[in-house]
Protein backbone atom coordinates (compact mmCIF):
# COMPACT_ATOMS: atom_id res chain seq x y z
CA UNK A 1 0.00 0.00 0.00
CA UNK A 2 1.64 3.19 -1.20
CA UNK A 3 0.12 5.42 1.48
CA UNK A 4 1.30 3.10 4.19
CA UNK A 5 4.83 3.17 2.79
CA UNK A 6 4.79 6.96 2.90
CA UNK A 7 3.71 6.82 6.52
CA UNK A 8 6.43 4.31 7.34
CA UNK A 9 9.03 6.74 6.06
CA UNK A 10 7.68 9.34 8.46
CA UNK A 11 7.81 7.10 11.52
CA UNK A 12 10.90 5.04 10.72
CA UNK A 13 13.25 7.56 12.25
CA UNK A 14 11.21 7.60 15.47
CA UNK A 15 11.16 3.80 15.59
CA UNK A 16 14.93 3.71 15.27
CA UNK A 17 15.25 6.16 18.15
CA UNK A 18 12.99 3.97 20.32
CA UNK A 19 15.13 1.01 19.35
CA UNK A 20 18.17 2.81 20.73
CA UNK A 21 16.34 3.49 24.00
CA UNK A 22 15.12 -0.10 24.39
CA UNK A 23 17.48 -2.91 23.34
CA UNK A 24 14.59 -5.41 23.34
CA UNK A 25 12.62 -3.31 20.86
CA UNK A 26 12.32 -4.92 17.44
CA UNK A 27 11.72 -2.42 14.63
CA UNK A 28 10.63 -5.00 12.04
CA UNK A 29 8.10 -6.67 14.33
CA UNK A 30 6.73 -3.28 15.31
CA UNK A 31 6.40 -2.20 11.69
CA UNK A 32 4.38 -5.33 10.93
CA UNK A 33 2.20 -4.65 13.95
CA UNK A 34 1.68 -1.02 12.92
CA UNK A 35 0.81 -2.17 9.40
CA UNK A 36 -1.83 -4.54 10.77
CA UNK A 37 -3.30 -1.85 13.04
CA UNK A 38 -3.31 0.71 10.24
CA UNK A 39 -5.15 -1.62 7.86
CA UNK A 40 -7.63 -2.64 10.54
CA UNK A 41 -8.48 0.98 11.40
CA UNK A 42 -8.66 1.95 7.73
CA UNK A 43 -11.03 -0.92 6.98
CA UNK A 44 -13.15 -0.02 10.00
CA UNK A 45 -13.63 3.58 8.88
CA UNK A 46 -14.59 2.41 5.40
CA UNK A 47 -17.23 0.12 6.94
CA UNK A 48 -18.63 2.96 9.05
CA UNK A 49 -19.23 5.02 5.90
CA UNK A 50 -20.96 2.02 4.27
CA UNK A 51 -23.12 1.50 7.34
CA UNK A 52 -24.11 5.15 7.85
CA UNK A 53 -27.76 4.72 6.75
CA UNK A 54 -28.15 1.67 9.00
CA UNK A 55 -26.41 3.40 11.88
CA UNK A 56 -28.74 6.39 11.63
CA UNK A 57 -31.75 4.09 11.64
CA UNK A 58 -30.63 1.94 14.55
CA UNK A 59 -29.18 4.80 16.58
CA UNK A 60 -31.91 7.44 16.23
CA UNK A 61 -29.94 10.01 18.18
CA UNK A 62 -27.14 9.83 15.64
CA UNK A 63 -27.70 12.53 13.07
CA UNK A 64 -26.19 11.13 9.88
CA UNK A 65 -25.40 14.57 8.46
CA UNK A 66 -23.79 15.74 11.69
CA UNK A 67 -21.88 12.49 12.07
CA UNK A 68 -20.58 12.59 8.50
CA UNK A 69 -19.64 16.22 9.01
CA UNK A 70 -17.77 15.31 12.21
CA UNK A 71 -15.77 12.66 10.38
CA UNK A 72 -15.05 15.08 7.55
CA UNK A 73 -13.99 17.76 10.02
CA UNK A 74 -11.68 15.36 11.79
CA UNK A 75 -10.09 14.43 8.48
CA UNK A 76 -9.79 18.11 7.54
CA UNK A 77 -8.09 19.01 10.81
CA UNK A 78 -5.84 15.96 10.49
CA UNK A 79 -4.88 17.15 7.02
CA UNK A 80 -3.87 20.55 8.39
CA UNK A 81 -1.93 18.90 11.21
CA UNK A 82 -0.07 16.78 8.68
CA UNK A 83 1.38 19.95 7.20
CA UNK A 84 2.47 21.28 10.58
CA UNK A 85 2.89 18.29 12.84
CA UNK A 86 5.54 19.42 15.28
CA UNK A 87 3.46 21.63 17.66
CA UNK A 88 0.58 19.15 17.82
CA UNK A 89 2.82 16.17 18.46
CA UNK A 90 4.71 18.12 21.07
CA UNK A 91 1.41 18.72 22.86
CA UNK A 92 0.52 15.01 22.69
CA UNK A 93 3.96 13.94 23.86
CA UNK A 94 3.53 16.21 26.88
CA UNK A 95 0.38 14.31 27.84
CA UNK A 96 -2.35 16.01 25.78
CA UNK A 97 -4.82 13.82 23.95
CA UNK A 98 -5.39 13.65 20.21
CA UNK A 99 -9.02 14.37 20.97
CA UNK A 100 -8.01 17.82 22.17
CA UNK A 101 -5.53 18.40 19.38
CA UNK A 102 -8.11 17.44 16.75
CA UNK A 103 -10.75 19.48 18.62
CA UNK A 104 -13.14 16.54 18.88
CA UNK A 105 -16.00 17.30 21.26
CA UNK A 106 -17.22 14.95 23.98
CA UNK A 107 -20.49 14.62 22.06
CA UNK A 108 -18.67 13.49 18.94
CA UNK A 109 -16.63 11.01 20.95
CA UNK A 110 -19.82 9.63 22.49
CA UNK A 111 -21.32 9.29 19.01
CA UNK A 112 -18.23 7.51 17.73
CA UNK A 113 -18.42 5.17 20.72
CA UNK A 114 -22.04 4.32 19.98
CA UNK A 115 -21.13 3.61 16.36
CA UNK A 116 -18.24 1.36 17.39
CA UNK A 117 -20.53 -0.41 19.83
CA UNK A 118 -23.11 -0.93 17.08
CA UNK A 119 -20.48 -2.34 14.70
CA UNK A 120 -19.36 -4.66 17.51
CA UNK A 121 -22.88 -5.80 18.27
CA UNK A 122 -23.36 -6.60 14.59
CA UNK A 123 -20.43 -9.03 15.05
CA UNK A 124 -18.08 -7.15 12.75
CA UNK A 125 -15.38 -7.86 15.30
CA UNK A 126 -12.38 -7.03 13.13
CA UNK A 127 -13.82 -3.62 12.24
CA UNK A 128 -15.01 -3.02 15.80
CA UNK A 129 -11.47 -3.72 16.94
CA UNK A 130 -10.22 -1.10 14.49
CA UNK A 131 -12.73 1.50 15.69
CA UNK A 132 -12.02 0.91 19.37
CA UNK A 133 -8.32 1.03 18.55
CA UNK A 134 -8.80 4.44 16.91
CA UNK A 135 -10.90 5.68 19.83
CA UNK A 136 -8.28 4.47 22.31
CA UNK A 137 -5.62 6.39 20.42
CA UNK A 138 -7.81 9.51 20.29
CA UNK A 139 -8.30 9.46 24.06
CA UNK A 140 -6.83 6.58 26.07
CA UNK A 141 -8.49 7.76 29.30
CA UNK A 142 -11.81 6.00 28.59
CA UNK A 143 -12.04 2.52 30.07
CA UNK A 144 -14.94 1.67 27.74
CA UNK A 145 -12.69 2.02 24.68
CA UNK A 146 -10.19 -0.49 26.07
CA UNK A 147 -12.98 -2.87 27.10
CA UNK A 148 -14.43 -2.61 23.61
CA UNK A 149 -11.08 -3.35 22.04
CA UNK A 150 -10.53 -6.26 24.41
CA UNK A 151 -13.98 -7.74 23.78
CA UNK A 152 -13.58 -7.48 20.00
CA UNK A 153 -10.17 -9.17 20.10
CA UNK A 154 -11.50 -11.81 22.49
CA UNK A 155 -14.35 -12.63 20.13
CA UNK A 156 -11.80 -12.98 17.33
CA UNK A 157 -9.94 -15.51 19.46
CA UNK A 158 -6.94 -13.17 19.76
CA UNK A 159 -6.50 -13.70 23.48
CA UNK A 160 -3.03 -12.16 23.79
CA UNK A 161 -4.25 -8.97 22.12
CA UNK A 162 -7.40 -9.00 24.24
CA UNK A 163 -5.34 -9.43 27.40
CA UNK A 164 -3.25 -6.40 26.49
CA UNK A 165 -6.36 -4.26 25.94
CA UNK A 166 -7.95 -5.44 29.21
CA UNK A 167 -4.74 -4.70 31.09
CA UNK A 168 -4.89 -1.15 29.71
CA UNK A 169 -8.54 -0.97 30.82
CA UNK A 170 -7.39 -1.96 34.30
CA UNK A 171 -4.74 0.74 34.22
CA UNK A 172 -7.42 3.35 33.57
CA UNK A 173 -9.86 1.93 36.15
CA UNK A 174 -8.18 -0.42 38.58
CA UNK A 175 -11.31 -0.50 40.76
CA UNK A 176 -13.42 -2.05 37.99
CA UNK A 177 -13.50 -5.79 38.72
CA UNK A 178 -14.52 -6.63 35.16
CA UNK A 179 -11.17 -5.44 33.79
CA UNK A 180 -9.51 -8.12 35.94
CA UNK A 181 -12.20 -10.73 35.31
CA UNK A 182 -11.71 -10.36 31.56
CA UNK A 183 -7.95 -10.61 32.01
CA UNK A 184 -8.56 -13.85 33.89
CA UNK A 185 -10.66 -15.21 31.05
CA UNK A 186 -7.87 -14.46 28.58
CA UNK A 187 -5.31 -16.17 30.81
CA UNK A 188 -7.61 -19.19 31.00
CA UNK A 189 -7.98 -19.26 27.21
CA UNK A 190 -4.18 -19.11 26.99
CA UNK A 191 -3.89 -21.99 29.51
CA UNK A 192 -2.17 -19.73 32.04
CA UNK A 193 -3.77 -20.80 35.31
CA UNK A 194 -1.39 -18.80 37.50
CA UNK A 195 -2.11 -15.62 35.57
CA UNK A 196 -5.84 -16.28 35.84
CA UNK A 197 -5.59 -16.77 39.59
CA UNK A 198 -3.72 -13.50 40.05
CA UNK A 199 -6.26 -11.62 37.91
CA UNK A 200 -9.17 -13.15 39.85
CA UNK A 201 -7.49 -12.22 43.11
CA UNK A 202 -7.28 -8.61 41.91
CA UNK A 203 -10.92 -8.75 40.81
CA UNK A 204 -11.94 -10.12 44.19
CA UNK A 205 -10.20 -7.26 45.99
CA UNK A 206 -12.35 -4.64 44.24
CA UNK A 207 -15.59 -6.55 43.52
CA UNK A 208 -18.55 -5.01 45.32
CA UNK A 209 -21.52 -6.12 43.23
CA UNK A 210 -23.27 -9.50 43.12
CA UNK A 211 -22.81 -9.83 39.35
CA UNK A 212 -19.02 -9.52 39.54
CA UNK A 213 -18.75 -11.67 42.67
CA UNK A 214 -20.81 -14.40 41.02
CA UNK A 215 -18.63 -14.36 37.91
CA UNK A 216 -15.45 -14.51 40.00
CA UNK A 217 -16.79 -17.55 41.88
CA UNK A 218 -17.72 -19.25 38.64
CA UNK A 219 -14.29 -18.72 37.11
CA UNK A 220 -12.53 -19.83 40.30
CA UNK A 221 -14.49 -23.08 40.13
CA UNK A 222 -13.51 -23.48 36.51
CA UNK A 223 -9.78 -23.24 37.15
CA UNK A 224 -9.82 -25.33 40.35
Amino acid at each position, binding site marked *: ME*QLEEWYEEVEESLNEISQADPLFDVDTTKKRLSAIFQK*VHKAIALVFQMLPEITEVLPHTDQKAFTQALEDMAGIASVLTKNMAP*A*FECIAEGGSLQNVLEITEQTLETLYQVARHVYEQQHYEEASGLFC*LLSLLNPA*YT*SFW*LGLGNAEYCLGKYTEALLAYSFAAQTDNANPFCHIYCARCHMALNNRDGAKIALSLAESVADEPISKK*EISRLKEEIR
Partner: protein
Amino acid sequence: MTTPIGPQQPSAHSPEEKKTEKSAPSLPEELGHPSAAPHAHLPLALLLGKERIPPEAQKLGTQIAAQLVVFVLTHKK
Protein backbone atom coordinates in the same frame (compact mmCIF):
# COMPACT_ATOMS: atom_id res chain seq x y z
CA MET B 1 -17.67 2.19 37.35
CA THR B 2 -18.67 0.29 34.26
CA THR B 3 -20.29 -3.07 34.85
CA PRO B 4 -20.72 -4.64 31.47
CA ILE B 5 -21.66 -8.21 30.88
CA GLY B 6 -18.42 -9.36 29.37
CA PRO B 7 -17.58 -11.68 26.58
CA GLN B 8 -18.60 -15.25 27.01
CA GLN B 9 -16.28 -17.93 25.80
CA PRO B 10 -16.73 -17.73 22.05
CA SER B 11 -17.86 -21.04 20.71
CA ALA B 12 -15.99 -20.55 17.45
CA HIS B 13 -13.59 -18.12 15.85
CA SER B 14 -13.92 -18.45 12.11
CA PRO B 15 -15.89 -15.70 10.35
CA GLU B 16 -18.57 -18.20 9.36
CA GLU B 17 -18.91 -19.65 12.81
CA LYS B 18 -18.87 -16.37 14.71
CA LYS B 19 -22.03 -15.30 12.92
CA THR B 20 -23.83 -18.20 14.53
CA GLU B 21 -23.23 -16.96 18.08
CA LYS B 22 -26.57 -16.50 19.74
CA SER B 23 -25.69 -13.77 22.21
CA ALA B 24 -23.28 -10.95 21.43
CA PRO B 25 -21.15 -9.92 24.40
CA SER B 26 -22.30 -6.52 25.54
CA LEU B 27 -20.50 -3.27 26.26
CA PRO B 28 -21.46 -0.37 28.54
CA GLU B 29 -24.35 1.58 27.04
CA GLU B 30 -22.84 4.87 28.06
CA LEU B 31 -19.30 5.98 27.36
CA GLY B 32 -18.70 6.94 30.99
CA HIS B 33 -16.12 9.39 32.25
CA PRO B 34 -12.44 9.71 31.39
CA SER B 35 -10.05 8.25 33.90
CA ALA B 36 -7.90 10.42 36.11
CA ALA B 37 -5.25 7.69 36.23
CA PRO B 38 -2.07 8.21 34.20
CA HIS B 39 -2.76 7.10 30.64
CA ALA B 40 -0.46 9.07 28.32
CA HIS B 41 1.74 6.00 27.78
CA LEU B 42 -1.10 3.74 26.65
CA PRO B 43 -1.25 4.68 22.93
CA LEU B 44 2.39 3.76 22.53
CA ALA B 45 1.97 0.59 24.56
CA LEU B 46 -0.92 -0.43 22.32
CA LEU B 47 1.03 0.19 19.14
CA LEU B 48 4.11 -1.63 20.39
CA GLY B 49 2.09 -4.48 21.89
CA LYS B 50 3.75 -4.10 25.27
CA GLU B 51 2.19 -3.61 28.67
CA ARG B 52 5.21 -1.71 29.94
CA ILE B 53 7.47 0.58 27.91
CA PRO B 54 10.70 2.41 28.66
CA PRO B 55 10.14 6.03 29.76
CA GLU B 56 12.71 7.21 27.21
CA ALA B 57 10.54 5.90 24.39
CA GLN B 58 7.25 7.34 25.55
CA LYS B 59 7.54 10.75 23.95
CA LEU B 60 8.59 9.39 20.57
CA GLY B 61 6.05 6.61 20.72
CA THR B 62 3.21 8.94 21.55
CA GLN B 63 4.13 10.93 18.47
CA ILE B 64 3.93 7.76 16.38
CA ALA B 65 0.45 7.07 17.77
CA ALA B 66 -0.56 10.58 16.78
CA GLN B 67 0.89 10.14 13.31
CA LEU B 68 -1.08 6.95 12.82
CA VAL B 69 -4.39 8.58 13.72
CA VAL B 70 -3.71 11.67 11.65
CA PHE B 71 -2.66 9.57 8.68
CA VAL B 72 -5.70 7.30 8.88
CA LEU B 73 -8.08 10.25 9.17
CA THR B 74 -6.40 12.06 6.32
CA HIS B 75 -6.59 9.02 4.06
CA LYS B 76 -9.86 7.60 5.32
CA LYS B 77 -11.49 7.27 1.91
